[in-house]
């Protein structure tokens, strides 16, 4: 049986001035630390970049097979 793992964190460097600005900005918000805020913003940025990527393309054969079933079920005319 396995050992209980721990969630891993690492350190990145940001300018002290930026750190101070963020610290000031998050006062009275739901963010409890600068790290929490930076994590939130980075997740948001990465997600928006991923959204811009092209949507998944299915093969013609796959698509035709699916459309056939959709027609049989009455979802497509």
């Amino acid at each position: 049986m396995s050992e209980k793992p721990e969630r891993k964190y690492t350190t990145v460097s940001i300018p002290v001035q930026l750190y101070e600005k963020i610290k000031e900005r998050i006062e009275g918000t739901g963010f409890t630390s600068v790290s929490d805020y930076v994590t939130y913003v980075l997740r948001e940025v990465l997600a928006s970049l991923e959204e811009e990527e092209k949507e998944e393309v299915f093969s013609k054969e796959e698509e035709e097979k699916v459309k056939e079933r959709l027609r049989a079920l009455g979802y497509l005319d």
Partner: protein
Amino acid sequence: MLPKPHGGTLINRVLHEKERILDSLREMPNLEISKDVAVDIENIAYGAFSPLQGFMCQNDYLSVLDSMRLEDDTPWTIPVVLDGLREKLKENEIKEGDAVLLSHEGVSIALLNIEEIFDYNKKDHADKVFQTTDATHPGVRKTYQMGDVLIGGDIELINGIPNPFEQYTLRPIETRILFKELGWRTVVGFQTRNAPHLGHEYVQKTALTFVDGLFINPVIGRKKRGDFRDEVILKAYEELIRNYYLKDRAVLAILRTEMRYAGPKEAIFHAIVRKNFGCTHFIVGRDHAGVGNYYQPYEAQEIFSEFPDLGITPVFFKEFYYCKKCYGYVNERICPHEGEDIIPPSGTKIRKMLTNGKIPPKEMMRPEVAEIILNFDNPFIE
């Protein structure tokens, strides 16, 4: 543009060369699974639970409990796990690294490649998923009945279990192609476990005003006593759509999975699943996936602020009700009236009237829908 599946790729874990492995299946150790687990294996295999490829191993499981994310930081709030009994696994000499056959009532459902067998704490599980350890909560009760270990590993689907609602069942690849064919670039998903009343209809239509299409996706599976039966929900929605919706703007298809009643955490899970079906938006109303008084009325909306990277936009609504003075369906954000002036479409009142064979007032439920429900001998789960 439709969103990419959660985690980036639509998972497909359907075994395509069944014949080739039929002989080896007979030699494999066998684990009997419940209907709920068998159904969720199909959800994994067809990508509704993307990026999951099987049952969670310990790192993902603990990360979901502690951080509401998979180990790789992808948002995920509900553990998808397979439980077992240590003694039984020992008896059958099943261990990590083995491939086992998962079956339900004599049907071979899937292959499981066991990566990990690990201990877990049921109280901790209940507390972190359901925010309570009270055994009267249906999700907690089920957790306490689970086996003493969890078995993690990838699956490959061999056979689905019989599906009485096959004609209403669409896989994520099918909805994605359907939405594209219909020309929908924005789609709002609506989760439900109820037959529709006017409040539901107005929520859906208000959201539909701003997007191309509406995906009504009732949860079909184990629910609690007093909930509408699955076939009642489907027939009621068909009638509503036939009479009151534009044909090319609404699609009805089911999601086969059990209700967990995990409130806010289940709301995130429901949104992720609808993203995998191709929805860009997801409706979250009052007390989403709640039960009793375990969650605050709008807690399931608040939790979305913790996920800037969910990849599906939640659409929040206050409850809609009929206002005699406004002559229409409104909610507290647009109507100044209260008390005697308003008729809320109370689910409890509607159920009571239907149980007594009465058609609820037209301000609460469409008469056509009520009649369909009353055609059933017993529309509710006993």
